[in-house]
């Protein structure tokens, strides 16, 4: 349990009394030692409705003709105005260009897999069968910075099938064997972070359970180690057993960020929409994922969370336009009734796409509200201690381009990133800038390169440097 946070409001989280006194300790300002930064990645598919690189009206970006500041006027009437309450704590990034990586052979694969890995596909894989060729940034952060070997949370709302196999943004490494399986049910996410102590808040029961579990786990570790010691194991099998061994965890009886009974019941009872095609249900499940994510960060369980909505092309979720359900989002993003390039046009599809964008913006704001309801020991907001990133696999609807993929960052990781502005990353044009951004995020959270300096070498070989233009 991380002792640096207290709950200010929402979601019924309770913190154990024995820990409260530690909150009395004050620090002058956010300190990386006591308020370690984190990153939450919130992924939307299919681009956004914008005017860059496509002949459609601008409905997404803030107006920046009069300067970079995110004023009410600049944001008004654009998708980002859903976040106007947080305008002073936002960084809106333009000119985030992914690499072309032709081997992906598909814009969705290129975006969804590259977005957090900054790499091309694993050799011999492409399109719907594309696999990552390296670990994703959320995994890297968790692997290096999480306490107690906790895996970073990865949650997914949408059908567990479809393009790229459904969940597809978080990877332990290269190839199918390193594709991460996400948590679908938000309640499972909660149970994972409370470590099997299912929130009864009964210390005696928790300790009895922990004792039993520890005895069993000792046995399981011996069994697993015996398997690991067998000769002539393939590398895939060694990796699988290593992963299994790391998954055998004792129960922390001191964990004290359990939800109260009512909150747990609510979470359990509201978990039905994670495998839906109904956009409202999917986004409702996503909000529950965000509750769990905020709790996981607040409790110090993880320093990274990835939240994915929809499959590789979000091709089955049907969002709502008032009382009317749209065609699936992929169709809408194509502006036609087809997953391909040939189909009946959808009337006003660009406007519908914009409405979907707004729903994602509203959902992102919900995450920010959750994080902002937690207070750090120095009286600040948990939101400001880390980076919450709403991003897209690609820039626009048709033609699903790789340029100007929207990245909206809330929070400054303790004052490291500029705030209240829209900034076009330098460079670009046809060149990628996205890899530098991932290095910037990783470095802000605390990752280092091989020399022990702030991260600047994550991703494809040749990807170097960070985006100094967005640093304070």
């Amino acid at each position: 349990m991380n002792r640096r946070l207290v709950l200010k409001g929402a979601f019924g989280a309770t913190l154990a009394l024995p820990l409260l006194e530690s909150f009395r300790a004050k620090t002058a300002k956010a300190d990386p030692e006591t308020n370690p930064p984190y990153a939450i990645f919130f992924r939307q598919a299919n681009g956004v409705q914008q005017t860059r690189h496509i002949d459609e009206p601008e409905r997404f970006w803030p107006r920046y003709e009069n300067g970079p500041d995110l004023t009410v006027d600049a944001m008004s009437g654009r998708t980002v105005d859903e976040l106007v309450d947080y305008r002073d704590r936002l960084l809106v990034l333009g000119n985030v260009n992914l690499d072309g990586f032709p081997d992906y052979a598909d814009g969705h694969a290129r975006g969804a897999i590259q977005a957090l890995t900054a790499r091309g596909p694993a050799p011999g894989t492409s399109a719907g069968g594309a696999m990552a060729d390296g670990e994703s940034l959320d995994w890297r952060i968790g692997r290096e910075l999480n306490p107690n070997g906790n895996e970073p949370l990865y949650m997914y709302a949408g059908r567990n099938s479809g393009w790229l196999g459904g969940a597809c943004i978080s990877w332990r490494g290269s190839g199918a064997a390193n594709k991460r399986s996400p948590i679908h049910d938000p309640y499972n996410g909660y149970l994972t972070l409370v470590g099997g102590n299912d929130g009864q808040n009964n210390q005696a029961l928790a300790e009895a359970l922990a004792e039993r579990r520890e005895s069993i786990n000792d046995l399981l570790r011996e069994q697993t180690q015996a398997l690991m010691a067998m000769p002539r194991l393939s590398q895939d099998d060694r990796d699988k057993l290593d992963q299994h061994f790391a998954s055998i965890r004792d129960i922390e009886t001191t964990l004290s960020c359990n939800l109260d009974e009512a909150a747990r019941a609510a979470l359990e009872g509201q978990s039905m929409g994670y495998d839906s095609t109904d956009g409202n249900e999917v986004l409702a499940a996503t909000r529950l994922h965000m509750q769990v994510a905020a709790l996981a960060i607040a409790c110090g369980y993880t320093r990274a969370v990835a939240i994915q909505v929809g499959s590789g092309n979000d091709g089955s979720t049907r969002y709502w336009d008032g009382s009317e359900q749209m065609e699936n989002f992929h169709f809408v993003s194509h502006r036609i009734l087809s997953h391909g390039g040939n189909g009946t046009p959808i009337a006003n599809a660009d406007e519908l796409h914009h409405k979907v964008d707004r729903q994602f913006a509203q959902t992102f704001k919900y995450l920010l509200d959750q994080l902002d309801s937690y207070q750090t020991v120095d009286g600040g907001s948990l939101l400001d201690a880390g980076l919450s990133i709403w991003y897209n696999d690609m820039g626009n609807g048709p033609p699903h381009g790789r340029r100007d993929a929207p990245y909206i960052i809330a929070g400054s990781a303790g004052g490291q990133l500029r705030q209240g502005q829209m900034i076009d990353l330098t460079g670009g044009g046809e060149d990628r800038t996205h890899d530098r951004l991932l290095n910037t995020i990783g470095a802000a959270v605390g990752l280092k390169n091989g020399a022990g300096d702030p991260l600047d070498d994550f991703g494809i070989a040749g990807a170097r440097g960070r985006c100094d233009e967005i640093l304070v």
Partner: protein
Amino acid sequence: MGWLKGAWRRGGKPLFVVSGLAAAQLAWACTGSIGDGGDGAGAGGPGDTEPAAFEIGSTTRFARMTHEQYDRTVRVLLGRTEDETLRFSDTFRADAGDGNYDYDNATLVLGVDQGLHRAYEQAAAAIAEFFVEDPDLLARWVPTEGSDEDRVRGFIRDYGERVHRRPLTEAQVDEYFSLFTLGSTTYDEHPGVTGAVRLITEALFTSPHFLYRTEMATDVEDGVISLDGWDIASRLSFALWNEMPDDDLFAAARDGSLEAAAGLGAQVERMLGDDRAVTVFTRVLSQAMGVYRYGNIGPNPALFPDVPDDLSALAIDELAAMMRDAFVNGGTYRDILLEPRAFVNDQTAPLYGLDTASLTSEFEPVSLPAAERRGLLTSVGFLTSNSSSANPDPIHRGLFIAQRLLCIDVSAPPGEIPPLPTPEPDQTNREAIEIVTEQPNTNCANCHQRYINPFGFPFENFDAAGSIREDDRGNELDLATSPEIDGETITVGDSLELIDELAEREVVYECFGQLLTSYLMGRPYVRQDAQLRQVIGDRAYANRNVVELVTGGLVSPQFTHRRLEEEL
């Protein structure tokens, strides 16, 4: 390929292709070879041993149970095989899909992470409680005679053998027995032996020996590992029944008969005659035949007002009925391709131009005019799953044939691909696609013109709802093409001629062998599987029925051996 490619096959590698079993030398953009499948970490054994007697691709020694296999196996262990409502996996997180593999047993991606292990722990606790609350289970597995220690050790040996799916070593028995004291004192409601059994049961159901199909045999013979009877029993049972072995299979493992050809053959025959095998292979064959695309089915109601709203689900049922029939009634792969009949119900019959009289919601086989339709490739499911909402999709129809019937390895197209245009009023769908994909001297044309479009255009007389059409919005249809099959360019006048040609080609049956080989190995096909593919393919070409094809694979040495991995 950009945004155009949203609906390409899972694992699909669209457009740029090539090469089938024979096609080898192509332009730079068309690389790979049919059935190549990539390298599965070398052939036969490693260099420090004598060459293997046969080729075998690498397989995992730790195939984790799918969630369905977990539930089915737990029900066997709790004596509740009939109670399908008894599920302990409801809280398990779903497994990620492997986009290069169409079956459920994707051993590469089936791993355990912290979230899943926690769920396993909680399920095991519930299973253990269920066990000790059931007097029949206690009576069946916990000896009533002897000291408490003897009784608990007896339980560990007997029940542990079932859970581990092989006998426990004495060291393993001791490990589990180490939980005796804690278990016998930890549960107020279950003191003594019962409590010990409860805690040990909890441990058994979280053991890696339960969660994984652990292959323990290490005996090297002719450069490969000979699986022992216990390994083979589990391979068979999970492949054919999707659950742990039964008593007969365990007996065959124990007496060694599974390691001999006669004993193995007898068990395979017995198991394939069981309803559980029917269920498994109905699904496996449906997956092999492209059911992964059926979720895309959705003709535009404005254009096709008579199409049922739930055509996607109906088409899935149609395909399952067709595959089940082939498996149960001695059907061959040639039958699947050629038989002029369909499985229809009262909702789908009109799409075939059939009267609905006497039909119900159940799918029934009906004969079709041989001059109109033939087999799987003219089924409504195949045709609509490879259509846009408005128009037929000859690219995907062709791609399916290239990939699934000819096992052509379609490699990635370079760069951004523009979207296909909507056909002009005086233009056919074919003409619109040809303009985009067959411009002379382009990389697009290299592959589309040769390996994709010629397999798809002959089906242009079937609309996006799978019904026959006489013209394309008033424009005359042109169904003739010159596809290349197994290195030979032929000319066909329509889809029926193409299907007839395909059904004559040995390469098509070898490709089917490849699809089944992949399932039996539990991972994507690799080039070291070629011998096993050949065994199944030869049987298919010889018109052996589907059950006999599966049998051929199961009794082959590749199924009862494991590749000898390099010493790391």
